[in-house]
């Protein structure tokens, strides 16, 4: 009796089947444990225990300081921090899903992501206390596996959001997506940092003791590592690296002779350095340069009926730094963004972008990393690059501002704090 009543309140009652979505991930979907929805309703109580807690935020500096004297004890306490913190953060997002209008929640793509989150939540919270390096290695393996399966999240969310545009207002969509993405970055940062530290720790033990996979570190062993954080990242070098990769990628895609892609000139304070997670910054820079490049080449094609390499204007990247912040300005002559479109470039749900989001059907995973961007064809645009970059920037206490001169070009300004003292910013609107 009880169960029958409960049925009325569960999501998807009015659908008689969970038809396997027409996406390349059918096999993954089918392989998920078959969840009884009614059972899930009651399991929600478990969620409450976690979602009522606040996230314990960290700063880059804390992460670095932590690794300054890395001992086995510290590594294990990091592991347990991650073990207890991730479920709290995931539980908040599961809550967000549950607050979506249920009709949006029944969208197969959204359901897929929702189930993935539940699965991760369960798996991590049920992991027992980590007391030894072997426990830690098992934990890291489990984390890596989760990171792998969750790389579908962005494309699936993108497709889901795309299909739900008529059901939720654009502002709600943007807020939902921003919250999802910033939380995702935060969880991945914690997980990746811990995995990196663990690997580096093992490497160091190996080089000291000649043994790998010890259950406990030698007595008094300590090392100094910073995981994925770089305390003094050389900006000019980072930019230069991105520039080379982008030029190569576009020369390839547009069939240009070598060295004819638009120049990327790096100027300003070339000695500047700051504390950051280089992967994140590279992603932002890559996206902006990609947009500039694409615009210049498109314009070049349109004007001359074929790209004339001599007529391609260069992109100027200027570095400025003061005590507190770094500013990077990317200035191009790619024809600008019309004033009418400018307010919408940060939105995930702009109608102009609709056709872009369909492209998510063509990729199985999107991790929002540079290594991936390098391999994706530059012609493939998802409409996510700019909002995602801004989430990355704002997560660490910075921002991206875009100014346009329609008919001429665009200036993008990335500001980031230098010292890594800012705590994670999880509330991005």
């Amino acid at each position, binding site marked *: 009796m009880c169960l029958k009543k409960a049925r009325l309140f569960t999501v998807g009652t009015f659908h008689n089947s969970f038809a396997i979505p027409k996406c390349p991930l059918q096999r993954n979907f089918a392989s998920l444990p078959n969840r009884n929805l009614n059972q899930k309703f009651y399991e929600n109580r478990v969620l409450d225990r976690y979602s009522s807690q606040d996230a314990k935020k960290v700063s880059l500096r804390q992460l670095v300081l932590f690794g300054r004297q890395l001992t086995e004890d510290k590594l294990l306490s990091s592991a347990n921090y991650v073990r207890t913190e991730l479920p709290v953060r995931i539980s908040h997002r599961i809550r967000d899903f549950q607050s979506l209008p249920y009709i949006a929640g029944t969208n197969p793509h959204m359901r897929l992501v929702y189930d993935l989150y539940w699965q991760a939540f369960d798996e991590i919270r049920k992991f027992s206390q980590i007391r030894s390096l072997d426990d830690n290695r098992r934990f890291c393996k489990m984390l890596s596996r989760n990171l792998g399966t969750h790389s579908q999240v962005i494309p699936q969310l993108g497709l889901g959001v795309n299909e739900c545009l008529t059901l939720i207002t654009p502002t709600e969509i943007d807020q939902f997506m921003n919250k999802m993405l910033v939380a995702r970055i935060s969880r991945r940062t914690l997980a990746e940092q811990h995995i990196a530290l663990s690997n580096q720790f093992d490497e160091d033990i190996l080089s000291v003791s000649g043994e790998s996979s010890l259950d406990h570190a030698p007595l008094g062993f300590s090392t100094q590592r910073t995981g994925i954080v770089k305390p003094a990242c050389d900006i000019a070098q980072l930019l230069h690296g991105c520039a080379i990769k982008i030029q190569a990628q576009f020369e390839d895609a547009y069939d240009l002779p070598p060295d004819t892609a638009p*120049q990327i*000139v*790096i*100027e*300003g*304070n*070339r000695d500047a350095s700051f504390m950051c997670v280089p992967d994140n910054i590279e992603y932002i820079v890559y996206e902006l340069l990609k947009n500039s490049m694409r615009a210049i080449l498109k314009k070049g094609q349109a*004007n*001359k009926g074929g790209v004339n390499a*001599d*007529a391609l*204007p*260069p992109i100027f990247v*200027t570095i*400025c*730094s*003061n005590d*507190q*912040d770094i*500013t990077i*300005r990317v200035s191009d*002559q790619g024809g*600008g963004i*019309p*004033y*009418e479109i400018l307010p919408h470039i940060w939105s995930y749900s702009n109608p102009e972008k609709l056709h872009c989001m369909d492209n998510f059907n063509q990729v199985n995973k999107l991790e929002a990393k540079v290594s991936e961007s390098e391999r994706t064809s530059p012609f493939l645009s998802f409409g996510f690059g700019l909002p995602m970059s801004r989430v990355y920037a704002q997560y660490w206490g910075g921002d991206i*501002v875009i*100014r*346009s*001169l*329609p*008919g*001429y*070009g665009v*200036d993008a*300004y990335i500001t980031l704090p230098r010292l890594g003292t800012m705590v994670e910013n999880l509330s991005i609107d």
Partner: protein
Amino acid sequence: MVPQMLKFVSKVVGRRRYSSKSLSFEDEKLVLKYATRDIKPVTLRQLMAHGRKPLTESQILESCQYTQNELPVRLAKRVVAFQRLPFIVGMNPYISRVYYQYYEAFERLRSFPPVKTLEDEADFTKALLRQTQLLADVIPTIAQGFHECKKYMKTSDITSFIDELIKARIGLRVIGEQHVELSHQYRELMTEEEGNWAGEAQGDLKNETPGARDGASVLKDWVGSINTNLKPRRLIQQVCLYIQNVCEMHYGTSPEYIINQGISESSSSTQDSINMNYNSDTGNNQHNKRNSNNNNGGGGGENDIVMTYIPSHLEYIVMELLKNSYRATIEHSTRNRRLFHPSINITISKGVKYVGIRIRDEGGGISKSNMSHVFEYSWTTVKDIHETSAPNMMMGANASTGGAGGTFSIQANLDLQAGTGGPIAGLGFGLPMAKLYAGYFGGSLEIMSLEGHGCDVFLKIPCIDLNMDKLVI
């Protein structure tokens, strides 16, 4: 404020004799009567309709009657706004002086007999012109007054009072100037003479103001003070040259300027509009060291971007911004012992309904702490005229030094302003006013600062012919 106090204060301030009428409560009632009327907002289309060619007598009279009815209402509202200031603030001699000026203007225009003939109209226009000139230095006076009253009013209240005052003033001027211009244009047409009536106020910038005419062919571009064939490039070029002269006179040196333009739709060739002389292996600004007068718009500017706007407004805004850029560049060079000044880089682009202008300099930028003050009114101005120190402009925030006086002192500013086509004169009240002017017809002004490097200022100026029904003054 009590009228008796007003009389007392007027004697104290008395550099000029105010109206012989003593202000009584009766007068107060009159002011209130006008102030409580609604402003009749006029769309730009209506304003321009008065100037529809060919100009006829009835149009001029219509324009005059509108002006005669409308200005006293707006002036009265300003008067009342002053009256609502805290008593102690109203007692400040600078503030009360401006209050008096507005009061007088209101009185003079209100008491003018209704205009019915062309002769009446000529008299009215003369009076209007005179009033406009009398109200020329309102803003700096007010600034000084409020500076002295800082402790009696909240900064936000001061800012909003001055904002309202400036916005109202812009409206008054647009309407007033429009009519004055139309009136003169009409008379010129009638007498078919080459006019130089406004010669005394024009200074260097003859080509972009109504004062210089080469006959009917130029007249057709102008509707009152609106130029339908405005080329921002020419205007900016003239401002740059002017400022360059002043810099050279006072500093002995000056940066160059470069103007780029985005492709306007009519252009078929793209080559002209793109800067090509870049060295790829450089980190310094080789691309800025080119001849400053080569403004890439093709030889004679055939590809120049054209728009409809009130040139004196654009000129004011651009003047303020370029003054900042030039000075900052020179000072930054001195500080950093740069051997050359990087050029000021100006880019003009045209969107569908707006023209975008970017002014880029390498003057060291504005520090984060100063950025929040950059659009404030409350800094030292007239007071420090006698304490000339390091060459500083009379503007607000600056990367390293504040303060006033020096190179761009009162006199120099007056020189600068004398060339700006007349009635916008005032002693360079800087960025806040430029921002208000930019925003007046729906445009905007944004500053992006790269601390330690330079500034980018983004101006968005609406093409008012394309927005005429929406733009209300």
